């Protein structure tokens, strides 16, 4: 487990492709668990600490978190080729699966039983999102300022249905200013 200077390690792009294919195809509802298992436990390319640092960075940046992790890890071990190989493995298979689903949906999406099943699954999907909100909100500090920005974002985008770009331009500078002024 103990590794020093793993950043010097070079990895073959095809190994990156295979690893990120495995992560992608085993991850249903959140790839992060599988990414850690593959990169830290199975391959030993990253230490736990390195993995947490890269994941935190991936969360801070826009876009799917584990895709950001894929790009950083691929680039670190094999440059641009490695980043491309990792992304091809991570996104290529899901794109094919999803296109297959699209074909099935066009053929069978109108059947009553399919629509009933999808309706039940959509109610579950809504529940998953509410649960995500609860989990995220539990880590917020216990003062009113962060809640104010969250409420404004919800009202602007969810109730007023304003474009996200406007809402972010209006809220983000204020939120960053307040967070900067606060003591850590």
């Amino acid at each position, binding site marked *: 487990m103990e590794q020093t200077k793993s950043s010097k390690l070079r990895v073959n792009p095809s190994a990156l492709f295979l690893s990120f294919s495995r992560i*992608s*195809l085993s*991850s*249903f*509802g*959140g790839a992060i668990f599988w990414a850690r298992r593959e990169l830290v436990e199975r391959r030993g390319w990253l230490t736990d600490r390195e993995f947490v640092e890269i994941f935190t*960075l*991936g969360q*801070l*940046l*826009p*876009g*799917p978190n584990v*895709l*950001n992790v894929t*790009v950083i890890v691929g680039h670190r071990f094999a440059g641009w080729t490695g*980043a491309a190989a990792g*992304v091809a493995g991570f*996104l290529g*298979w*899901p*794109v094919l*699966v*999803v*296109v297959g*689903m699209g074909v099935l*949906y*066009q053929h069978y999406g109108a059947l009553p039983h399919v629509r*009933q*099943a*999808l*309706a*039940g*699954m*959509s*109610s*579950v999907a*809504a*529940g*998953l*999102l*509410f*649960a*995500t*909100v609860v989990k995220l909100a539990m880590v*917020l500090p216990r003062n009113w300022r*962060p809640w*104010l*920005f969250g409420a404004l*974002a*919800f009202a602007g*985008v*969810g109730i007023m249905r304003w474009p*996200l*770009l406007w809402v*972010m331009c209006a809220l*983000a500078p204020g939120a*960053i200013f307040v967070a*900067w002024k606060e003591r*850590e």
Partner: protein
Amino acid sequence: MERLNLVEMFLHFLVLWFLAIGGPSAIFPDIHRYLVESRQLLTNAEFVELYTLAQVAPGPNAMYVTLIGWHLAGWKGVIATTIPLLIPATTLTLLVGHLNERYPGARFGRVVRRALTPITIGLVLASATILMRAVNHNWGGYLITLLTVIVVLRKSWSPLWLFAAGALAGVAGLI
């Protein structure tokens, strides 16, 4: 389909992905607004069904945009909706990753993260309510949503089992 402008959709999605801090759920409300309300390319029901289908596919949750692209315009649509999600990851991520190695522990990154987390929570809540209003037409749907929240917060079961249970409840006529 004359309302469908792939270049415009590509550019709209590109701007959105640069705002998608906290992942794809943060931009779900705006994707819904654009496709269902503003451009009327999909009905509310189609949007919800495609989103839900993609949730049971492997890989990142964001793949629903790829499925919508396929539904609207085949492979061209896949490109118009999927390439935009790659661009912030390849440009910003590598740039910031580089800066992070040169200036480790910079305060600005932590501040931005702390500042934007509550906004992300508000946006995910907006996603959840839009989806719930679109799909739940009677008490059965709300009950399934509520049960899902309770189960997810108490157990660490795979979401696939919950989706399977939801599908069964739907076929049984509970929704």
